[in-house]
């Protein structure tokens, strides 16, 4: 990376229009992320249409701001209502809610905002150090390596759907199947179009994403919409004490890099990062008995980790064009729609865009800490807005988003079908991320597979031909057997007297 491109990126991200998008994105993301049951993936999916007509770089900045804004927002409802916005905010309920019950909600929100900020900043530094070398490395990939990399990502995300691997595989296979609908780009053959002209161009994965994440999630939330609203505790002081900071600073600093590394790994994301950092801190704490009772470090550590993971997850997305999680898959979809093709060439062809994004993350984290601390009262009031009013609004936004994809209301039927399907998947406990990831990478995966086979005159040996390919196969096998290995280790531990 040249210093000049970095500086150019910094200057672009400091342009007033981009600062405005950072603040708007962070604020909107925080609001959607705060809604119980709706996380960053839904926030990005629902707010995709907001980026229409924007300069690609501004759209990218806005999208990223929505993403990490939603990560911040998710923990607000964890602390105040004991209801996480999404998986990565679950760990924030363990000690955040007990803190709120003790009248320390304001302190909990402040420490979580500061921890998220520090975690985010650590991760941005990691991004600067790691992204370019990884992009350069990815340039060595041929079709066989790309196919295997996508296979690794899919297998990792399936094997991390702990306890429901079969459903994870089914979810992934359905995604791959959907990606085959339409004209095959290599041969011109129509596949699974059932004579419907509208399907000849394939199913737009953004419709699937908006359907599952927006419509499906709202329908799923209808299951519990009439439950008695949890009592919200008083916010109290909105800044933490010196003692609380002393207890939190090292857990925050340890969890940042940990979360970042977990975020970079395919399949893992904020949920795993925050859980691992929570259990790690509990294990090394001198007062583990205080965890779960309102220990401030039990909140600070996972908050730092999940925000760092959200930045880390941008590395495989931007350097290789491979999303590592459901939310980054949604982001990839949105980027492709904006005409931005993430991958190693993005760093070669448009370094300014990448470094503008990186710098905007720095600025965004500062903006979010201000939003989350200064506007605590406003955010708490927004949380008071009844879900019964907000969910219909989200449904309308989902329809608008879909319409703007092809300017055709026919797509609404697909949207409703996938929304209902998303509801069924949630009810039957199917992981959604493998489906979303598979439908996005499916077409590329198939094309790379066929190009690799074609280049080797039909021999499968091409998938074992280079050290990178072999390394990827080994990692895929490891990721598939990882749950079995973990089970064995746990059994052995239990059987020990």
């Amino acid at each position: 990376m040249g210093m000049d491109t970095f500086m150019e990126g910094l200057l672009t991200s400091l342009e007033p229009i981009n600062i405005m998008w950072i603040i708007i994105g962070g604020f909107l993301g925080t609001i959607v992320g705060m809604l119980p049951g709706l996380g960053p993936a839904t926030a990005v999916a629902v707010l995709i249409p907001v980026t229409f007509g924007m300069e690609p770089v501004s759209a990218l900045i806005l999208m990223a701001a929505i993403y990490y804004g939603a990560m911040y927002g998710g923990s607000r409802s964890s602390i105040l209502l004991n209801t996480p916005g999404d998986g990565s905010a679950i760990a924030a309920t363990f000690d955040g809610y007990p803190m709120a019950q003790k009248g320390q909600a304001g302190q909990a929100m402040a420490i979580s905002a500061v921890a998220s900020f520090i975690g985010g900043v650590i991760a941005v530094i990691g991004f600067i150090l790691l992204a370019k070398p990884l992009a350069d490395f990815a340039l060595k990939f041929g079709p066989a390596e790309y196919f295997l990399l996508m296979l690794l990502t899919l297998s990792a995300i399936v094997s991390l759907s702990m306890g429901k691997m079969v459903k994870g595989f089914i979810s992934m296979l359905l995604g791959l199947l959907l990606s085959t609908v339409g004209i095959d780009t290599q041969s011109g053959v129509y596949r699974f179009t059932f004579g419907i002209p509208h399907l000849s161009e394939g199913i737009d994965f953004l419709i699937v994403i908006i359907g599952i994440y927006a419509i499906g999630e709202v329908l799923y939330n209808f299951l519990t919409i009439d439950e008695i609203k949890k009592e919200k505790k008083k916010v109290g002081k909105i800044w933490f004490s010196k003692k609380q900071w002393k207890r939190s600073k090292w857990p925050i600093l340890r969890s940042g890099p940990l979360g970042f590394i977990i975020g970079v790994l395919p399949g893992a994301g904020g949920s795993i990062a925050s859980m691992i950092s929570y259990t790690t801190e509990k294990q090394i704490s001198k007062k583990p008995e205080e965890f779960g009772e309102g220990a401030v470090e039990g909140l600070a550590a996972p908050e730092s980790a999940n925000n760092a993971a959200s930045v880390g997850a941008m590395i495989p997305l931007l350097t290789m064009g491979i999303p590592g999680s459901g939310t980054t898959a949604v982001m990839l979809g949105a980027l492709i729609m904006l005409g931005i093709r993430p991958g190693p060439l993005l760093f070669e062809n448009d370094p300014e865009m990448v470094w503008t994004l990186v710098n905007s993350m720095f600025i965004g984290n500062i903006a979010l800490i201000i939003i989350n601390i200064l506007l605590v009262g406003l955010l708490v009031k927004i949380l008071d807005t009844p879900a019964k009013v907000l969910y219909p609004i989200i449904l309308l936004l989902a329809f608008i988003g879909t319409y703007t994809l092809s300017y055709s209301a026919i797509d609404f039927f697909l949207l409703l079908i996938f929304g209902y399907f998303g509801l069924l998947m949630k009810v039957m406990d199917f992981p959604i991320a493998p489906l979303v990831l598979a439908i996005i990478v499916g077409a590329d995966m198939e094309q790379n597979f066929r190009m690799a086979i074609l280049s080797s005159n039909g021999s499968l040996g091409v998938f074992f031909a280079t050290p990178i390919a072999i390394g990827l196969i080994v990692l895929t096998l490891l990721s598939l057997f990882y749950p079995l290995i973990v089970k064995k280790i746990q059994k052995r531990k239990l059987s020990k007297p």
Partner: protein
Amino acid sequence: MKAFKIGMPVFLIIVSIVCFIGAIRLPKANLGDPYGPLYFPIGISVLLFIFGIVYFFQEIKRINKSNNKITELFTGRTPKLIGVTIILGIGYTLIFESLGFLIASILFLGALLFVVNGIKNWKTNIIVALAFSFISWYAFSELLGVSLP
């Protein structure tokens, strides 16, 4: 609930069989490998069939275990809410282009709010439906330059 539990794997198995038949009947490619367009769909449908069978037996094994989420799906006003949302969605699709974005959205959002938020809160429902439809029309059509009907 049992039928619901078994229904999903049976549905998946049927999908895999239909896709397999559809895949082997696909025309061969005139360019490059004639079987190129078939590999992926065939591979996926075979794997889906295998995992569908495994899932079927998993569900048979825990057929008597209760799943609260399935129960919730059929209790209280949940089925009504879901059903009405989908029906209103279809209605919105049908009137969207003929009535135009603004009127269709006011009707759709208003009806949805009355169903979800209740008739008692009619003032809020009307204000939100009017205000949000107008704001979104203005934001998308005027500020973002999205062409809405």
